[in-house]
Structures are given as structure tokens and as C-alpha cells.
């Protein structure tokens, strides 16, 4: 109580914990407990949708050694990597333009970049289906121009997932890059210019290295979001592609193999956490 009385206006330590309690309870009930439950289930076996008593490592061993599962993981990771790379390539010029834009325009540009996030991913992915489908905008246009005889397969494969995924997650890349680019002191570029560096050299030797923290942050964000993405791979890739999130969905809700689905989910989560920690390390090294 003395702490409370000592500094009026600033709540004491006890009060602060009390204020945090509802949030802590919520997190415990809705995140931590289900996670523990998932962890337990992942060590069970199942038979015809029924979870059997006793514990087993079979799910993990099966996932890590099964021949098909390696392709599942590799393809998922390669797809997420492609989305990350594309986002970086497409996002950099946009971020550079926003960082250099006059202050009064920046708010509007930020809004334009973030605006797609206001639209549900399901809607956006279906939108891409309309554009990329066999009878979609692209195929119809190319057909009308006589450039193609048969429609291109732009959906129901990895290409569709990569295109859709890039569009869905590009804003995260742009926003992280913009923050990094705006922190670059303009005078450094003036200095490079006076020292004789042309625009390309100045970009490669000054702008790009100094944008690396933003590039890493954006990449980790996009990569982990894409790894866990479910709607876009399902709608634009369908069952023709191998994608972890889709496989988890199939296991859990089609095959009713909950133990394997949870094991797969947890493996994915471990990988994402590992990436996150590596990124923390990298950024700390950068700052040192």
C-alpha cells in the first residue's frame, strides 16, 4: 500500500499486475492451454478418428522420415521463400518512393499500401481466382490477343499460390522496408554523391546495406506469415499442391487424424520460432 501512496498517479506494482490479469487469463485460456493440449494430442495415436490411450512418437517419426513428407516441407518452404523474394523485389521500389515522398503525401501512401489488408484474405484470393483462372481475365485477354491457343495454368498450382501470396503479404514487406529506408540520413547520399558515386553505386553501397534490417524484418514477417497461410494456398493451389497448412487441414478435418495434424502444426511452429530467433540474433549483430 505504501507504494500506492508514495507516488500518486502511478499505480503500484500490485495494481499493475492486477490490471494485466484479464489479459493474462485470456492468453492462458485461449492460447497456452490449447497449445499444451495440442502438444499432448500430438503424442497420441488414433484409429478411425478415435484418439487412443497411451503415448507414442510415431506421428513425429512418420512426419520426419516419410518420403512424401520431405517434399511437403520443401515445397512449402520454397513457395514461402519465393513469395518473400518477390515481395522484396516488388516492395523495395515502392518503399523507396514512399520514404522519399513529401511528408504530406506519406500518410496517403501508407494508407494505399495498407488498404488491401482491410479486405478479407478469402475475398482477395477469390479475386485472384477470377483474374488467373482458366476463364479468368489474364487468359481471356491473352487469348483475345491471339498470344496463346490454350489457357495458361495460372491457378491450381504453385504459381497461383505465389502470385496470390505475394499480393496478400506485400504490404508487410513495404511497411518494414519504408521504416528502414526513412531512417537513412539523406546526407549520407549527398556525401556519396559528392565523393563521386553515381546513383547505382550509391544504392548498392549505401542505401541497400543500410536497409538490411528492414529487409530482414520484412522477410521474416512475410516468410512466416506465408508458411502459416492457409486460405491462399487452398483457394489458388487447391489439392494439387503440397502445402503444410493444407495438409494439416486435410488431416484434421477430412481424415480426422488429429494427432498427425497437431504434430505437423507444432513442427511448423518450432520452425517459425527458430527463424524468429535467428532474425533477432542477426539484427542484434547488425546493431553492434
Amino acid at each position, binding site marked *: 500500500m505504501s507504494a500506492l501512496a508514495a507516488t500518486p498517479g502511478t499505480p503500484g506494482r500490485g495494481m499493475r499486475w492486477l490490471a494485466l490479469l484479464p489479459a493474462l487469463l485470456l492468453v492462458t485460456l485461449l492460447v497456452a492451454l490449447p497449445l499444451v493440449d495440442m502438444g499432448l494430442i500430438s503424442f497420441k495415436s488414433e484409429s478411425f478418428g478415435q484418439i487412443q490411450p497411451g503415448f507414442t512418437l510415431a506421428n513425429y517419426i512418420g512426419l520426419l522420415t516419410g518420403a512424401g513428407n520431405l517434399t511437403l516441407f520443401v515445397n512449402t518452404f520454397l513457395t514461402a521463400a519465393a513469395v518473400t523474394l518477390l515481395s522484396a523485389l516488388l516492395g523495395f521500389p515502392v518503399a523507396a518512393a514512399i520514404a522519399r515522398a513529401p511528408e504530406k503525401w506519406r500518410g496517403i501512401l501508407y494508407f494505399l499500401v495498407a488498404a488491401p489488408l482491410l479486405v478479407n484474405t478469402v475475398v482477395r484470393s477469390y479475386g485472384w481466382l477470377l483474374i488467373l483462372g482458366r476463364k479468368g481475365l489474364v487468359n481471356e485477354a491473352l487469348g483475345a490477343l491471339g498470344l496463346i491457343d490454350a489457357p495458361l495454368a495460372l491457378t491450381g498450382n504453385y504459381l497461383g499460390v505465389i502470385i496470390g501470396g505475394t499480393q496478400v503479404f506485400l504490404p508487410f514487406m513495404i511497411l518494414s522496408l519504408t521504416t528502414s529506408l526513412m531512417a537513412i*540520413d539523406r*546526407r*549520407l547520399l*549527398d*556525401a*556519396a*554523391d*559528392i*565523393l*563521386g*558515386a*553515381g546513383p547505382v*553505386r550509391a544504392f548498392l*553501397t*549505401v542505401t541497400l*546495406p*543500410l536497409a538490411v534490417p528492414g529487409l530482414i524484418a520484412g522477410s521474416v514477417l512475410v516468410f512466416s506469415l506465408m508458411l502459416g497461410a492457409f486460405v491462399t494456398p487452398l483457394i489458388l493451389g487447391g489439392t494439387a499442391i503440397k502445402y503444410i497448412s493444407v495438409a494439416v487441414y486435410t488431416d484434421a478435418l477430412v481424415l480426422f487424424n488429429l494427432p498427425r495434424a497437431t504434430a505437423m502444426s507444432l513442427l511448423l511452429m518450432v520452425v517459425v520460432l527458430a527463424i524468429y530467433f535467428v532474425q533477432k540474433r542477426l539484427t542484434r549483430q547488425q546493431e553492434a
Partner: protein
Amino acid sequence: MSTAKVSVHQLVKRYGATTAADHIDLDIRDGEFLTLLGSSGCGKTTLMRMIAGLETPDAGVITIDGRDVTRLPPRQRRLGMVFQQYSLFPHMTIGDNIGYGLRAQGAPDAEIKARVDEMLELIQLPQLRERKPGQLSGGQQQRVALARALATRPSVLMLDEPLGALDLKLRRQLQAELKRIHRETGSTFLFVTHDQEEALFLSDRIAVMRGGRIEQLASPQDIYLRPASEFVADFIGDVAFLDGDYLPDSRSVTLADGARIGAELPLRAGPVRLAVRPEDILLAPPGADGVAGTVAEVSHQTGTTLYAVRLAGGQEVKVRSLGLSAEAVAPGQAVTLRFADCRLAFPR
């Protein structure tokens, strides 16, 4: 015939309603240390940035080494620049920072290495080659910035308030070092500052700027002893302005309250405004021959004492005496002022 390293002709730059450069003419001589001096907003930085190519003039011509560079980008002007905030590349080592310009010019590695060594020697920091800028003190960073700018042997080295971010002691130290480096390299230095003492100490010539114009361009001695205008006299050093009537026959100026001050002026008889420096006045006991006054304020400075003395007519003058006076002169005390013959005045 012209030995101008940089020549600026009728340069104009406007930002909206304000004119940052109002038809400026300026020749910078080969090898000189020229300072653009003025308070903020006088256009000194704009003028430097236009010479550097970082700003585009609205009108006028800039030549460097006889070459018209008005429309050239900075990288084609062969200049060096030191910024107030050091602006070293934070992700590169000190060695790479200094070698940046040479690398951009495509110099061979061996030459870059030799030149970087030479520059580190010049700024007396050879042991810092592999460090990053963040590990250096402000003074060291600014020395490295100087080395980076000089490494390419620029036609002109420009320094934009380079010592402004440093504390006083370090500033003094770096001023001396700048002077030494200027002497050793023989380069042309263009320096921008608002600090008049710094300008007087460093420069071969000073251009005092005001409102986008050069008010006076002359040596430090001339600027101090023969200021071209009241503005310059007021801007450089301490000065008191005393209004009176000049009588050439008696070689004196009579102030409004009847006090007379000896003066030898290249002016006709009539109303004048005398400019009196603190060191032109001696303090004497009350009743002595001279102008009576009352001490208003005493302030001790390093090595000197500055007295503000109010004259009978209400004007205040500053008097500087060497050292700390043994017998304390307290505020409120009556004194007599002895003026040296005044040579500086402006007609009214």
C-alpha cells in the same frame, strides 16, 4: 590572369518568398581558406550547397577550375565536403569510409590503400582503420570525415559548420588542426560558420553574409578594423555605437550629452555614428580627464574582464581590460572613460 578556383556569378536562389541568394558574386582563390560567415538564414549554407551541386540555382553561373559546373551533378564537380553531423557511412570501416571516393573513381586497390594510410597519418588516427564510425568520439569522427573528403584531392574542400556539434575545448583543438591541415595540403577550403571567432581565427578571407548577399569580403583584420557597414561592425566582435556630431577641425565627436571623444574620420562635418570597440577604451578613476560614466555590469572572461559602462546620455559601452583587476570595480561605481582616437564611424 584569374587564379579563381571557384567563381560564382550573379547567383540567385529563391525559396517561395525568401531569397536565399540574391545575385551573389564571389571568387575563391586557389589555396585560400575562405569563410562564409553569417547568422542562420543568411544564405551561407545555400550558397555552399549550390557550389556543391546539392541545390540548383535559379539563375547565375558557377565555375570550378574554369569549368562551368552550374548544371553538373555533385559527383562530376570533384569536390570534397564535410558535414556538421559527420555523415560517415555507419556500416563501413574507417578505412572504407576514407577510401570511398577513390573507389568510386575506380582507383586501383594499391593506390586506395596507400592514400588511406596517408590520410590516416594526416589526421593522426592510424590505429582506427578497422573501426566503425559508431565506435569513435565526435572529434575523431569529424577528423575521419575530413580525411574522407580530402582523400580524392578535391579542387575545393567545403566544410559546413563542421565543428558545430563539438564542445568548446574540442572545437578549439580541431580549429588548430584544420589550420594545420590547410597549410600542409595547400588545398582550397570553403568554410561555413555562424561563429565569428572561429571565422577570425581560421580564415584568409571572410565573406560576411546577410539576407542572401555578401555584405563584405575581406581579410579578418579588415573585417574587424574596417567593417564596411554597421551590420558588419556589429556582427564581428563587441561594439558600441555612439551618436554624435563630427567636427573635423577639432578632430572630435561631440555626443548628445556634451561629452567629447577624439576622432579622426574620413568624413565631413555632421552627424555620425561612432563604432567603439571595448579595447579602445580605458577605465580611469572618476574625475579624471575623459567621459564620465557609471559601471552597470562586470563580467569576468578568460584572461579579460568586460565592463558595461553607462554614459551620462544613457548609452552603454563595453570596456575590456586585461586580466582580473586587483581593485574590484563594482557595479554602480562612477568611473571615467578614456577613449583612444576613434577611427571608425558611419555617417548618419
